[in-house]
């Protein structure tokens, strides 16, 4: 009971990971420092900015508000996984086409949040898009272009299926 580090086994972007971690290590630090997955960014480190957003067991969470040790047995997906699987290739194309990023620091978290909204299907209102990404700070774009890109992706996906 006095151990301050422990062994964990989890799935990260489809691959099995077996590591010893300090119990106090957050998931985002584990991903970046131990696994070299630096696509998830560290911003405020207390749950406000959303730059560290990742998926755990299919739902987006703050990578700074969950411990790596809590992810023992979990399935973790990061922006690297979503990019490699091409799950959000259309969304990423629309981010580029509409200049929805400048410095890019918020972009991985923004994409993770937008991907979850888009996965619900349909074409959300601009207000609903703004609400869904309200937990992700962007200090460059003023959000307008990001909302444009998410909305365009939703319309394209709806057009393809109808």
């Amino acid at each position: 009971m006095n151990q301050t580090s422990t062994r964990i086994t989890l799935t990260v972007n489809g691959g099995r990971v077996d590591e010893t971690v300090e119990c106090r290590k957050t998931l985002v630090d584990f991903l970046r420092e131990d696994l070299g997955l630096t696509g998830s960014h560290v911003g405020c480190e207390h749950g406000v900015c959303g730059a560290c957003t990742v998926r755990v067991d299919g739902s987006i969470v703050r990578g700074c508000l969950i411990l790596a040790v809590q992810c023992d047995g979990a399935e973790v997906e990061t922006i690297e996984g979503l990019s490699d699987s091409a799950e959000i290739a259309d969304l990423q194309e629309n981010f580029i086409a509409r200049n929805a990023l400048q410095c890019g620091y918020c972009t991985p978290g923004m994409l993770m949040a937008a991907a979850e909204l888009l996965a619900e299907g349909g074409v959300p209102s601009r207000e609903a898009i703004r609400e869904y990404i309200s937990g992700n700070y962007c200090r460059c774009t003023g959000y307008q272009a990001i909302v444009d890109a998410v909305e365009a992706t939703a319309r394209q996906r709806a057009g393809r299926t109808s």
Partner: protein
Amino acid sequence: MKPSSFAYAKTRSLDETIGLLEQHRDEARIIAGGQSLMALLNLRLSAPKLLVDINGIAGLDGIALDGGDLKIGALVRHSAAQKSPLVARHAPLLALALPHVAHPAIRNRGTVGGSIALADPAAELPACLLALGGAVEIAGPGGMRTVAADDFFQGLYQTALGPDEVLTAIRLPAAGETTRVAFAELARRHGDFALVGLAASARAEGDRLEDLRLAFLSVALTPVRARRAETVLNGQRLGSLPVDEAVAALADDLDPDGDIHASREMKMHLAGVLLRRVAAQLERPVP
């Protein structure tokens, strides 16, 4: 890496959890969703020696009707409660309030029980529990006990929970045909903590408003009832509620401190604005 060093135990039962809490007392802290605690750990405002993770305890994540109550397990995530048809039907006040709680990534992880147990005075769910006259189920070394919402919130982050106890569920009186509920809050940005918020429940008895409970958030060290305003409105005719008089009564009910976000005067003004909005919502049946 921000938190100070701690040991970690993922427990599988309430007995195991309570045993660890009895053994480690103030040096241990329970983590459920962790959406407030993790921030406190990262800021080193909390530095436990042992973190007791209760996410592995089976049976604490159910939502079910139990007698006349809707019982919501402590480990139910905000997002699960938000999507639950049982919550929508039997606890419509929660359905109104949950979209105001933080952001999707936080709601996916944060738990209903954790929000109540932490008792942040700016949080939505404690005010809802109080407005509904609900109760809290608690497991401890002596077994189970139930504490009414009116007795649960005792001070800033202070509740009736003992150091060796675990909140296991909340109970909310299930909504009936005459139930009226309302929720409103004002925040600078969607999902931020509210400057002021108000949760309300009542019954429409014929053309009269009865059993009104008004619970404000972000105006005191705990969620607080506005009992004078309740008295002014109780028994009054729907369609012509004496809202001006009720707003005036808030001067006796509330005594907020100003903070960096809003002065005392601003909070009092906003409390009146919210009471008017909530009174208007109470005029209509639950949709």
